[in-house]
């Protein structure tokens, strides 16, 4: 089953005519994802690698029945791109773009709250259900079909964790990158809730980092509702306060959002916390009784 992305997912790529959009859309297609349309204003009627491009998402939806959008447009145009897909009735929007102003993200989230649309990202690697569909920029070959769900605020650190799992023979049901921005479309609790209800997912790896309180909220959810084992790692245990560590959302401000607080909350919720990033895979293998 996996969550949110599977073989029935039909994708419109916003920004397909750009270099990044074209490159990654081709990789997603190679993986077997149904890329049914592209969308770039003013480029309607053209083809990119055989995929028809439309001027608007509404056109793309009418002609191709796409139900998901994958966004590769520049930061100042990205909020508009998300809102356009949401208005066209697209159910799942994955926004890869990094550097969208936080104000625009807050406006987007206020608008999406009135729709049934799910936004993953922005500033994320996307979502992959191994063997089924990939909407994102993650390297496909490190993944393996299986039953561990992965959710993370990071990109390459997620690849690191997935690689460790795969090398230990532990496959993944779905891996969701929720992104490193302060106002993510989807948060840890949303993903944990979905994994909780997914019969194919038997355990979850959660990779958090400093800044905000979403890990604490996830810990509270796990304590109350989660029926599956959760393994976690929090990056930024050595990060200085008040500095943005690469991700716009990775900042300890006013003494809040430290790795220490988060790890304490996770441990108190019965979550297995890996002491180092090198031990994420093995911690999960142990939790599953496979090591």
């Amino acid at each position: 089953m996996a969550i949110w992305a599977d073989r029935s997912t039909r994708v419109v790529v916003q920004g397909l005519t750009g270099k990044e959009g074209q490159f990654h859309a081709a990789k997603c297609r190679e993986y077997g994802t149904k890329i049914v349309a592209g969308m770039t204003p003013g480029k309607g009627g053209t083809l990119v690698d055989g995929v028809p491009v439309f001027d608007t998402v509404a056109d793309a939806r009418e002609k191709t029945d796409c139900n998901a959008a994958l966004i590769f447009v520049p930061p100042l145009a990205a909020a508009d791109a998300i809102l356009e897909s949401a208005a066209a009735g697209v159910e799942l929007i994955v926004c890869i773009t990094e550097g969208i102003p936080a104000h625009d993200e807050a406006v987007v989230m206020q608008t999406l709250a009135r729709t049934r649309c799910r936004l993953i990202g922005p500033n994320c690697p996307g979502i992959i259900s191994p063997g089924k569909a990939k909407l994102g920029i993650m390297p496909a070959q490190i993944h393996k079909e299986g039953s561990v769900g992965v959710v993370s605020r990071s990109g390459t650190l997620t690849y690191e964790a997935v690689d460790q799992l795969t090398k230990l023979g532990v496959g993944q049901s779905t891996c969701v990158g929720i992104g490193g921005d302060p106002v993510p479309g989807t948060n840890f609790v949303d993903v944990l809730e979905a994994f909780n209800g997914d019969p194919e997912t038997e355990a979850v790896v959660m990779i958090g980092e400093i800044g905000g309180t979403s890990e604490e909220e996830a810990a509270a959810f796990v304590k109350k509702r989660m029926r599956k084992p959760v393994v976690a790692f929090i990056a930024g245990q050595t990060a200085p306060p008040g500095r943005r560590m690469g991700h716009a959302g990775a900042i300890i401000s006013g003494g809040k959002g430290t790795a220490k607080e988060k790890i304490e909350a996770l441990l108190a919720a019965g979550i297995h916390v890996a002491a180092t990033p090198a031990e994420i895979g093995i911690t999960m293998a142990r939790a599953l009784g496979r090591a």
Partner: protein
Amino acid sequence: MKVHEYQAKEVLAHYGVAIPRSRLVTRPEEARAAASDLGGRVVVKAQVHAGGRGKAGGVKLATSAEEAFVVARQILGMRLVSKQTGPEGKIVHKVLVEEALEIAHELYLGVVLDRSVGLPVMMASRFGGMEIEEVAAEHPDAILKEHFDPCQGLHAYQARKLGFALDLSGDTLKKFVKFVTALARAYNESDATLAEINPLLVTADGDVVALDAKMNFDDSALVRHPEIAAMRDLDEEDPLEVEASKFDLNYIKLDGNIGCMVNGAGLAMATMDIIKHHGGAPANFLDVGGGASQERVENAFRILLSDPGVRAVLINIFGGIVRCDMIAAGVVAAATSLKVNVPIVVRLQGTNVDEGKRILAESGLALQPADTMADAAAAVVAAVKSAAGGTAAPRKER
């Protein structure tokens, strides 16, 4: 991006937030003239990007123009050391000379993004002058909050609600409402990430004025505010960080001695963590980006090596979209042209990893390969220890 108090007040004034009359000066003689124009009684305030200026001797009252001259002479050029500057402190180049107002009482106002709900929140408290974190710890009930929709802004009724809760009335309440709504608009329209008025002054005449002001702005939005982007003060930033920003590299200087180069922010933080776990201390955070190019790798390498405290380097790259062979070529090119004389541990994983390892091995450079993050961290800590004769203790000086 951080700005100085005087710059924050400029932005706020543009949106109709009430601020005291003031003048920015760089010489004591100018301070005397400014004080005389402002009526003699003034406050002279050091302009540095750090809080705690008052306790550090960077804010002083002068009762005459002559005293303003004397006080400005003391503050200008001083090395201001506060809790927020670190022990090295900051040299004061500019002071703000501001009219001294009769204080009736002091309040607190601040706007930030409340990440748990994805909305900006206006916070107010009667404990003006106290840091909001302290108030939150000691008097959590004293912090009043009004969230607002960024599309609609903060409504007047919300500002009134805060004002009534702070026991304001009459003309002062009206002025407060105007002040609060203007502050919310300034935050919203200038893409601020923080707008804090601490203290907010209620004067003996019932006026409501921003005595101090602090604003931070969203780096991602500066392209649409060139007038704010121009307020960046490079004197306030670490020179290596300034250099890194020219190449769009995320570099943050730290106190340790192991230079790190990693692709991706999460993996970069995790790499710092694992170095610490193995008893070492990272010299920096450096994210060359998920899709690092050879040129970026070379620039990144050059910048992290220009930190004289670096005794060894750990390169940790997870090649996903970016290929390990390309990274390896960049590392070899940079290490060759920079004549590196510290041990370098390289851990490559992912796409084309074998080709990458071959390039490193055949380069003839003293690069130490590692397969896993744990191996890499152990190796780099050991390298620092053997170079320092058995201790990996981070350097003390900065």
